[in-house]
């Protein structure tokens, strides 16, 4: 038995106008201070006003939101009693919104949520997610990543009831995204789609959105990075991010994410940059030990018109294309280039490996690495040595 779920998705020009047609009394908007400063909440508020919906903003979500932030947000939600929770921002804000819905609707602590439990959250509130970046795909998944600040660890959580009811992809929300964030988050979208397409939990339902997302990212990410005013590229990247989310959210991500989460937890590297950095190294590792994944990489390369020929050469060509795209959108290709000192990195190696070993993504690949192989991958990624083992 496997599941497949997607939110009702509104996309394209003026998609935010959909908000003035929805039913509700009180909306609790969960975002960060920068989104407020950019005036994006005003656009949403104007639509809610037309729908006669009262609204309140919680703007204290930090990058890599902590459990404490969610508890604070849920406490305020309990006072306000919204029937709509709206997450506006990147993955951090949307994940905080999902967690707030669970804590508010089910009256439990964030870490107590489980996909096994039924909470009947819709009896309390519906969930709307409005991304302001194009990468996390959080608007299309039930997955949540919170940070346990005490143990410097990212924690993957979720419930099927945290899949948003509605995702709104309005290009106005991403037009002001700076190039660096465009590059970081775009690589996250690519990583979701490539890893989702090759995960052992993949299904026919996840393959289609995964393949399309990869092709769209290859065709549009650099355009959006070079010219943030390229509205068509922005729109396409929004769609790719959501499709990438659908792909991995209904399947699973892979080693780029488990290694990326590890460095993100310990060195606070932005999520998309971290997973994008490790993606090509982990792809090489899988090519060296899995014919099945090599074949699927080759399918991607052919579908995206990146290569022709036998499976292995196509797969390696895909790895090369990933690196070229990353370079072209300002991404570090090595941990050293990301500004992390060798000594600090090596001193953290045991923690990096221990975190990566214990990520669910590590076991959802066709070649599951043991701790010693993960350590080799981490070491290769420091200087940019190809993973040839």
């Amino acid at each position, binding site marked *: 038995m496997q599941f497949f779920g997607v939110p009702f998705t509104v996309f394209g020009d003026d998609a935010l106008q959909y908000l003035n047609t929805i039913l509700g009394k009180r909306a609790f908007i969960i975002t960060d201070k920068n989104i407020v400063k950019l005036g994006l909440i005003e656009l949403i508020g104007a639509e809610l006003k037309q729908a006669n919906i009262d609204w309140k903003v919680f703007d204290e979500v930090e990058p890599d939101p902590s459990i404490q932030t969610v508890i604070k947000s849920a406490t305020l939600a309990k006072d306000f009693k919204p029937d709509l929770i709206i997450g506006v921002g990147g993955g951090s804000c949307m994940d905080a919104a999902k967690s707030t819905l669970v804590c508010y609707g089910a009256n439990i602590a964030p870490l107590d949520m489980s996909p096994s439990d039924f909470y009947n959250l819709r009896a309390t509130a519906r969930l709307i997610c409005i991304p302001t970046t194009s990468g996390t795909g959080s608007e299309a998944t039930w997955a949540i990543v919170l940070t346990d600040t005490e143990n410097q660890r990212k924690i993957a959580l979720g419930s099927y009831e945290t899949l948003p009811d509605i995702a709104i992809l309005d290009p106005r929300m991403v037009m002001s995204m700076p190039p660096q964030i465009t590059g970081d988050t775009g690589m996250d979208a690519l990583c979701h789609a490539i890893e989702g397409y090759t995960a052992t939990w993949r299904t026919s339902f996840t393959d289609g959105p995964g393949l399309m997302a990869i092709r769209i990212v290859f065709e549009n990410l650099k355009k959006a990075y070079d010219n943030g005013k390229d509205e068509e590229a922005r729109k396409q990247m929004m769609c790719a991010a959501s499709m990438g989310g659908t792909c991995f959210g209904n399947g699973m991500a892979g080693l780029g994410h488990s290694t990326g989460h590890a460095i993100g937890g310990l060195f606070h590297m932005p999520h998309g940059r971290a997973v994008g950095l490790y993606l090509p190294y982990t792809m090489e590792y899988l090519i060296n030990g899995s014919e099945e994944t090599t074949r699927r990489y080759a399918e991607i390369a052919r579908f995206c018109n990146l290569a022709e020929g036998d499976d292995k050469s196509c797969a390696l060509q895909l790895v090369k294309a990933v690196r070229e795209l990353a370079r072209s959108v300002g991404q570090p290709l090595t941990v050293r280039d990301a500004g992390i000192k060798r000594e600090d990195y090596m001193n953290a190696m045991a923690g990096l490996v221990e975190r990566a070993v214990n990520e669910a993504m*590590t076991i959802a690949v066709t070649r599951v690495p043991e701790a010693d192989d993960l350590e080799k991958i981490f070491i290769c990624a420091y200087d940019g040595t190809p993973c040839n083992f």
Partner: protein
Amino acid sequence: MAKFGTLEWATQFMEAINNSKAYEEAAKTWEGDFYFIIEPGGSIKEPVYQYVDLWHGKCRKVDIVSEAEKDRYKPEFLLSASVATWRKVAEKKVDPIQAIVTRQLKLQGNMGKVMRAVKAAQELVNCVTQVKTEYPE
């Protein structure tokens, strides 16, 4: 051949755990006990509670408890499923984490703690495969 859901099976499972270096390494920081619950169905007329106490890479105790005696232990985690689902997990036809995520295995307890012990969960399944098991119809 031990019958799944009996003390004989649970004891062999404990031995497999305590002989596994891979589990010991993967679960060296794990502290938490379980009820692995077999839900009624077929020849299983009432739930069977398999108590398993896991501590720092070792299994300290196992027991089998009936519905009437289930308050004997207060484990941190409850993981329940039909015999058919337990068999699929034991035979590696479905990953235990995937089974939890798709509600085939129903988990009660701190999901975050379990999700930080993925490798240990995998090694625990490897221990199950060491036990020659007869499954009830």
